[in-house]
């Protein structure tokens, strides 16, 4: 069913690492931004200075969401390039199945996200205070789970986007508004009712809710609803992309 999955995943990791600029953009840039941002807000957080927006207090949540969204955009772009270059078409003539290709790329993205977040944790530790009640392991699991589910949105976009040139803007057009309404920058309660309803229908909202909750030290049971919605999003998106996947 997944013949060639691990071979393909391993190859894609090696291929990724062979492009230094891509490695820097994917891992280096977010880490750098996180370190700079936490140097700015860290001391004020520690002294409890007033006037800091909630997003600053929960910087790791925001960063994780941005890493997840850029992973989706990158997945979409790679699939578009592979399609345009005829690589997907060539793979189609083998026993490889589309879900194996997508799964391999999701595994690569998850691994890179994990590496990025771990690097951030190490590099930013000195500046950014982590509350005693935060379980980093729990948070890490929540981030990877959310990322996997958000990546499934990428499957659907990647399955239909015609050309590499459109892939990134299309993905950004879908994902950034979702991120804006996700409750990351402002609580959902302050939104007008109509926007609030829209936000409730968007998958990223549940990812933000889950990550914020775990970061604040709330239990997984409290967020079982978020987990369920994200899992449902994953299943639906995987099913849809399996049907609409285009090889060329």
């Amino acid at each position, binding site marked *: 069913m997944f*013949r*060639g999955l691990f*071979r*393909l995943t391993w*190859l*894609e990791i*090696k*291929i990724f690492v*062979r*492009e230094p600029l891509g490695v820097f953009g994917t891992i280096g840039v977010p880490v750098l931004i996180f370190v700079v941002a936490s140097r700015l807000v860290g001391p004020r957080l520690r002294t409890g200075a007033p006037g800091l927006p909630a997003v600053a207090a929960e910087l790791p949540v925001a960063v994780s969401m941005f890493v997840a969204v850029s992973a989706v955009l990158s997945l979409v772009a790679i699939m578009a390039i*592979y399609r345009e*270059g*005829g*690589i997907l*078409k*060539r793979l*189609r*003539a*083998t*026993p*490889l199945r589309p879900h194996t290709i997508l799964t391999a790329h999701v595994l690569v993205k998850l691994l890179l996200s994990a590496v990025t977040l771990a690097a951030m944790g190490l590099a930013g530790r000195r500046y950014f205070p982590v509350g005693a009640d935060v379980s980093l392991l729990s948070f890490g699991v929540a981030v990877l789970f959310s990322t996997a589910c958000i990546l499934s949105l990428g499957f659907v976009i990647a399955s239909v986007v015609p050309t590499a040139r459109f892939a990134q803007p299309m993905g950004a057009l879908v994902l950034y508004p979702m991120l804006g309404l996700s409750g990351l920058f402002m609580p959902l309660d302050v939104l007008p009712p109509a926007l609030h309803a829209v936000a409730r229908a968007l998958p990223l909202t549940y990812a933000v809710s889950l990550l914020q909750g775990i970061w604040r030290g709330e239990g997984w049971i409290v967020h079982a609803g978020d987990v369920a919605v994200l899992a449902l999003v994953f299943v639906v998106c995987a099913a849809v992309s399996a049907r609409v996947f285009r090889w060329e």
Partner: protein
Amino acid sequence: MRAGAPVRANGHVAQSVCTRVAQDPVIRVSLLRKTYGRIVAVDDVSFDVHQGEIFGLIGPNGAGKTTTMECIEGLRAPDRGAIAVLGLDPVRDARALQERIGVQLQEAQLQKRITVREAVGLWAALYRISVDGDHLLERLGLTDKRHAWFMTLSGGQKQRLLIALALINDPEVVFLDELTTGLDPQARRTIWELVRGIRARGKTVFLTTHLMEEAERLCDRVAIIDRGKLVDLGSPAALVRRHCPLTSVVVSTDDPAALAGFQAMPAVASVSREGTEHTIRGRADDLVTQVIRYVAEHRLHVDGFRTQSPTLEDVFLQITGHTIRD
């Protein structure tokens, strides 16, 4: 024979098929039709491909060659008609078929930074049966390049790698789509040798090309396709005999009696003279013999002697009324 058996262009082909069919054809295409919107890409095409032959689908770009091939490979679903490859339906039995065929697609690419060896290793992992990758690379002359990235390979090396990938599962039928397009003559010759090697191993090769020289040198039989229709089918030599039965012999001699002598030979259709050069056109089967005999019997002093045989290019022009490059 089943309903919808291939319609053959004429009796000659039917005869040559009957003498060869001891077993079922490896590929049987019957009244294949494929349209894109209102454009008919493949229009009721039928033919058989036999075990162990190199079969070429030839015609200009846009004639429907690739569409036909991709329907046979199971990459496209035909609108109408029946296709059987190794007794399997390419669409319904796609998975079973993929294990038994090898495919090289037109303008296929791999990941830019995948190495030759990694590509072969990945492909080998995808199939139930695979041949030894390193040995295969050696056969295709890619051993020195096994650690090179795909993007750094020359056109000929890329094509040889793509052929290697098509052979990794030890397929019974190998499909090669325009495999020498864009290659220099030297690389082209190397690839032709490789394709003959595939046949020598008992495989059936199905290829498309718009290069008539390639078809003539490589293929046991060719099907000429133009604007979606199959116009004729046979061995290159048979097609030439059928459509361009006249050949030319060019003899350089200063003997004043030669012109009249050549004109009097039974196989001759016409003779033209330019200076001392006589161009004698006539029936291919007898002409050369008659000219040689005449030259010998009359002790003609000859400065030059060459034959100009018609090629598939001439056949194509004759059948379709336009050249292949139009």
